[in-house]
């Protein structure tokens, strides 16, 4: 058997391979389920029902999918220029911190709800963008590897969040009331800083959080940016060949800064949505924002969506559904860890499937090799 590079990548493979990867992942996970004493088919049925069919399931799935869409889009935005922003996690946390501050402050002033929300969105984006700009500046001016810097800053952001909740003088800390005297906690957002949700009246109501709408909007904007604009063109050239970009007179540093900032802003918006849509406070409890690892799952989502913004949203809904099902089904006869195992297998099959898109296998006895080599 030989592996050789495909000269042309057939279009149908781009769809067949991800679909095949998912089928394979379900098969492989089935083996795991069998080994742990579960019948896979009913288990899958259970998962599917819990994710998309049961009463309120879709609503829960969308809630789980929204942050993944944001962090997925953030990773995809940077990767289009071959920048590996692993810092979506930290940028999301910082976005939540700044958006929360904006909500507390402007909400506290009693400003009208739309303005408070707009301020929170702006603050979330600005916070995420600023945090992402740290690896951006280091990369642009000192050629520091952005993978390491952005990753390390995730820990800084997480500790910063904890500090802001625990510190006595913190603006974010709740200082009055019964709960606050038992354990340190953060202030709740005032009611005019809470984000609205559209409810679709079907099957007992499907809430459509504002954040989900913003995520779709962000995906559309990114898609237009990367396929229709000079900015996207330059980013693609830079990602493909920095030397060609330099030759074409593109401004490399500026572009790195801009792309990192955009990536960070999207992750930060995800943090704002967590704060305004769902949590309504900047919490530090054991199941708090730092323990969800949305940033890391987002990288998986982006990879599965092949860094295409629209596909990323779709994948976020699928993975969100899986996570939601994991939470719902968690119990004695369905360990929640299984969902994590399935997620891992899906990722591995998808990345393995990537090989099939770019290479093909031949099972002939005679050896073959790449044409390009042969004609040198």
């Amino acid at each position, binding site marked *: 058997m030989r592996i050789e590079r495909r000269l042309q990548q057939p279009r149908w493979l781009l769809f067949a391979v991800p679909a095949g990867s998912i089928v394979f992942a379900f098969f492989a996970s089935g083996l795991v389920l069998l080994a742990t004493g579960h019948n896979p088919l009913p288990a899958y049925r259970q998962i599917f029902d819990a994710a998309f069919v049961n009463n309120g399931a879709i609503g829960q799935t969308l809630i789980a999918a929204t942050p993944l869409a944001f962090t997925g889009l953030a990773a995809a935005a940077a990767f289009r220029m071959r920048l590996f922003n692993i810092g979506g996690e930290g940028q999301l946390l910082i976005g939540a911190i700044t958006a929360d501050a904006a909500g507390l402050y402007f909400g506290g002033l009693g400003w009208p709800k739309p303005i408070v929300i707009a301020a929170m969105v702006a603050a979330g984006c600005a916070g995420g963008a600023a945090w992402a700009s740290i690896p951006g500046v280091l990369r642009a001016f000192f050629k520091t590897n952005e993978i390491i810097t952005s990753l390390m800053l995730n820990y800084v952001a997480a500790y910063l969040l904890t500090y802001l909740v625990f510190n006595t003088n913190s603006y974010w800390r709740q200082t009055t009331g019964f709960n606050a005297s038992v354990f340190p906690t953060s202030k709740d957002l005032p009611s005019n800083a809470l984000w609205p949700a559209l409810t679709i009246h079907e099957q007992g109501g499907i809430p459509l959080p504002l954040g989900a709408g913003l995520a779709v909007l962000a995906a559309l904007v990114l898609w237009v940016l990367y396929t229709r604009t*000079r900015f996207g063109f330059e980013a693609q050239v830079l990602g493909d060949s920095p030397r*060609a970009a330099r*030759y074409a007179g593109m401004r490399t540093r500026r572009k790195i800064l801009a792309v990192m900032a955009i990536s960070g802003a999207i992750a930060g918006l995800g943090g704002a949505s967590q704060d305004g849509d769902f949590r309504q406070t900047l919490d530090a409890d054991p199941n708090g924002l730092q323990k969800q690892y949305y940033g890391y799952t987002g990288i998986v989502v982006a990879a599965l969506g092949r860094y295409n913004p629209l596909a990323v949203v779709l994948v976020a809904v699928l993975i969100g559904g899986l996570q939601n099902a994991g939470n719902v089904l968690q119990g004695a006869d369905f360990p929640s860890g299984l969902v994590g195992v399935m997620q891992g297998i899906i990722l591995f099959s998808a990345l393995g499937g990537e090989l099939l898109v770019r290479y093909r296998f031949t099972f002939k006895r*005679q050896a*073959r090799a790449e*044409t390009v080599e*042969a*004609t040198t």
Partner: protein
Amino acid sequence: MRGITKRFPGVLANDGVDFEAAAGEVHALLGENGAGKSTLSNILTGLYRPDEGEIFLHGEQVDFHVPRDALDAGICMVHQHFRLVEPFTVAENVVLGDHRGEGRAFRLRHRAIERRVGELSTRYGLHVDPRARIWQLSLGEQQRVEILKALYREARILILDEPTAVLTPQEADVLFETLREMANEGRTVIFISHKLHEVKAVADRVTVLRGGRTIATVSTAEATPRSLASLMVGRELESITRSADPGGRGPGAAVLELEGVWAQGDRGDAAVRGVTLDVCAGEVVAIAGVAGNGQRELAETIAGIRHQTEGEVRVGGRKLRGDPRAAQAAGVAYVPEDRLGTGVAPSMSIASNLVLRSYREGYASHGPLLRLGAIRERAVDLIRAYRIAAPSPSTSARLLSGGNLQKVVLAREFSGKPKVVVAASPTRGLDVGAIETVHAYLRDAAAEGVAVLLISEDLDEILGLADRIAVMYEGAIVGVTSRADASVEEIGLQMAGGHDPRED
């Protein structure tokens, strides 16, 4: 080798090739790019296995499964891109992978190996210090290490893939003497080339390949460069010798002016040292020189990709300084040497690559938005005008052959109505047909009044195209002659820094 056939996806690289070489001869393998020379030698060295056909060595049929089988049978190859370990010494490289002799020992007996390598290098005139490390050596010296490697293993058959590409004419002459010497001892030397005069100079017999088939095996004594060339390309060439002066067109005003230009290389050394040169409208000025003597850095400085540290670059009277956009606006078109990495963004489409340098202009974009329809239309037009063989404008650039890729670059650069064209090794690695096309475009550009600066290592190309020839050596221009006064000997000598290695 009899009836060798080798298929690759979409290509029949060798189609029933017959080839034989006798002991004690230098046998040239001549053919255009893609004629199947490399494939054939890769089969002979065990790198590929043939789909059909048989190989006989000293009358016995052999079957090479892996390269080591061929090595054990005494077949060695000197590849175009050397297979040397840079931080290792010459002696270490020579024994590397030699699993029968010294290379097998756990602890290398450096002294003995160095002595043996030293002996071999004196005997065959392959001067190189056995203790030098590879990265310290010039390409010519590295090539000698590769040949020493083969001699050390007592190779009976030595294959050299375009060995003169990295050599000055004088170094090539020395190499030819070594090869003759080896043949006189009864070894077989297979010499792959597409340069006719070299084949004439060194080989006893020549096998011409074309389109994966054996066309003929002739003795070089009976062949003329013209007859070989027509065998190689399958048609009579217009003229492979130097063309006559293209008419009494006098050069116009100086368009590109370089005055005492200095520039740094990638390692921070002074790669360009005080170059002063003018190129007039309608004139082709060639810069000859062995690669790595500052030509690339000079070209990049003119194109604004590299900052000059001193001196002035003027185009049409406008001073330029390290800004690619300003250089482009002033009318500088640049055909970079590194086609795939710099000339195009390889995984992007042909259409995108055709606007790579002009996407900011009105036809291609409207404010921040791209006019995708117009970009595609333009791509369709240029693909037709420049006869680029491509399935569609959305095909990735990396899938194109070298010649078509170069046409994409030329189409882009020439369609911008340049005043100055800087072309760096524009025909390197292309086949004869594509080379003619590139030359025609450069000539046409000059005829239309463009100032052309051609950087090349190929003296035939330079003598065929240039009105004036400047030789660059260690970052400086060491001589400028008009074509009429140029002599290959003299230019070769200047390229080698005025030092003739035969006097060693």
